[in-house]
């Protein structure tokens, strides 16, 4: 009897890719920083003695070296409970993103329900939903901020609303598709019980839409994160990764920009992974198929 191949732990493949990136990091860094390093050496006022050594300590490297990045992260993450750290600002952005996702999910469920309710409502609403996605978010954000500011809405909410604005599209389209994909026999079954429309919706359509809903939520989570950072940049804000990004880029602080970028990437990965976990718990009944 052939032995089954040894099971690969799920964390191994991504870790291997991570290792490859680390291996490529230094060569790539050397390549991109080489000319800057030559200039630095030519000026003669740096405490490095070769192009190779200088490439590790440029003030504004295109790609920072591992020690530079670690030092940059340490500087931006301390003191731990200050409101200037990249972690605190990351939390602000995360809060806006989660708020946006919650709004998008509510709005998405609502529009999806309207979309599947009747052909007429679909023909009325769908073009507007599609059109809404063609408004450049960067242009829309300040308008929304001023509009909401008039009514005293400030803080996380305006950015959450911008995040929701772009995140709700995949959700409403995905949920609508899910709500429609009920097998006809199951609809017949509910019909024989003389079930009301809301009963069919809650006990049949929603559970069947759940897998597509969660997949759409993952796409939306990434979009909402981008949305809230864009909103922070285009609406005047004092906290979040967006303003940090803006000021670091003003001072061409490449190390700082890399740190912020990596924190944002970490947030995105964390969000999608959390939804993945949620999916595994909620869709236990799909695993055995």
């Amino acid at each position, binding site marked *: 009897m052939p032995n089954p191949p040894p099971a690969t732990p799920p964390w191994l493949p991504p870790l291997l890719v991570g290792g490859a990136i680390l291996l490529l990091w230094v060569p790539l860094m050397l390549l991109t920083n080489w000319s800057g390093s030559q200039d630095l050496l030519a000026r003669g006022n740096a405490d490095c003695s070769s192009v190779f050594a200088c490439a590790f300590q440029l003030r504004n490297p295109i790609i920072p070296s591992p020690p530079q990045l670690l030092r940059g992260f340490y500087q931006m993450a301390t003191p731990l409970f200050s409101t200037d750290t990249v972690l605190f600002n990351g939390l602000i952005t995360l809060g806006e993103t989660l708020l946006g996702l919650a709004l998008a999910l509510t709005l998405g469920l609502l529009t999806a329900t309207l979309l599947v309710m009747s052909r007429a409502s679909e023909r009325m609403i769908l073009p507007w939903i599609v059109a809404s996605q063609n408004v450049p978010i960067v242009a829309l954000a300040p308008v929304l901020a001023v509009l909401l500011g008039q009514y005293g809405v400030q803080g996380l909410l305006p950015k959450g609303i911008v995040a929701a604005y772009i995140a709700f599209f995949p959700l409403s389209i995905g949920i609508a598709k899910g709500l429609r994909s009920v097998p006809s026999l199951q609809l*017949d079954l509910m019909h024989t019980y003389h079930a009301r429309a809301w009963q069919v919706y809650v006990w049949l359509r929603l559970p069947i839409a759940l897998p597509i809903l969660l997949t759409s939520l993952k796409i939306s989570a990434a979009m909402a994160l981008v949305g809230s950072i864009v909103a922070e940049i285009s609406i005047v804000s004092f906290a979040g990764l967006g303003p940090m990004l803006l000021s670091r880029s003003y001072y061409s602080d490449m190390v700082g920009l890399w740190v912020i970028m990596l924190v944002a990437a970490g947030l995105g990965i964390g969000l999608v992974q959390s939804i993945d976990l949620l999916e595994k718990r909620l869709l236990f009944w799909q695993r055995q198929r």
Partner: protein
Amino acid sequence: MTNLTDPCLLTHSQPQGSPAPLVTVQGVSKIYPVLGRDPVVALHHVSLEVAAGEFIALIGPSGCGKTTLLRILADLDQPTQGTVQMAGRSPQQARQDRLYGYIFQAPTLLEWRTALQNVLLPLQVMNWPAAERLEKARTMLKLVGLELFHHNYPWQLSGGMQQRVSIARALAFDPDVLLMDEPFGALDEITREKMNLELLRLWEATHKTIFFVTHSIQEAVFLSTRVVVMTPNPGQIAQIIPIDLPQPRGFETWKDPRFFQLTTQVLESLREVYA
């Protein structure tokens, strides 16, 4: 009421002196329009009267309209012509009054619900009090021999067990009529015979009126009080054969010489299909 001007119309009345029929099908036709071709006649002037407590087997090859007739009884399809009455009501009214339970060819269980929760579904729809519906669902699962599988999900049950859950679900709200559309068609021979015995036991215990669609001559004769033989193109009733095998039936029935006579008789009336 025989319409002599129409040779296709076959009226099969109950013997004199029996109570008023529970289900009456009168001159029912169903025609499906097909784009760019001749319409398909799924049912052609079908008439049938069924008394309460009868077990009616509908048999015939694919396309003879058995399922269509069942779906019309259940108000899942509307007849093009003719009328159907169940306990003096239209199919729509009968459905709204939850007079019948429908059992599909596939178990049609909701995968995210356990066996118990699946049986609870119709009772939830019908808004039974929580304690009462739980007790009823438990009783029903016990009735179909699944008392040890309350908390199993459909994918943790065999095909036969899944179909038993769907039968328990259809019986849960105590409808007078059971409409069964080839419920055991997907099961293996041995499981099928076991399910036949269980269904007989259920029928004897509950006195339901059952309409049972099948492809199997043996199954039809073994279970029913009357076999309705249907032929296709167009779908109509060829013959109705009363089954006078003694009740209660069981293993002995399969060995009864009368059983062979009756299956042969059903086969004979299906002859034109084989020709």
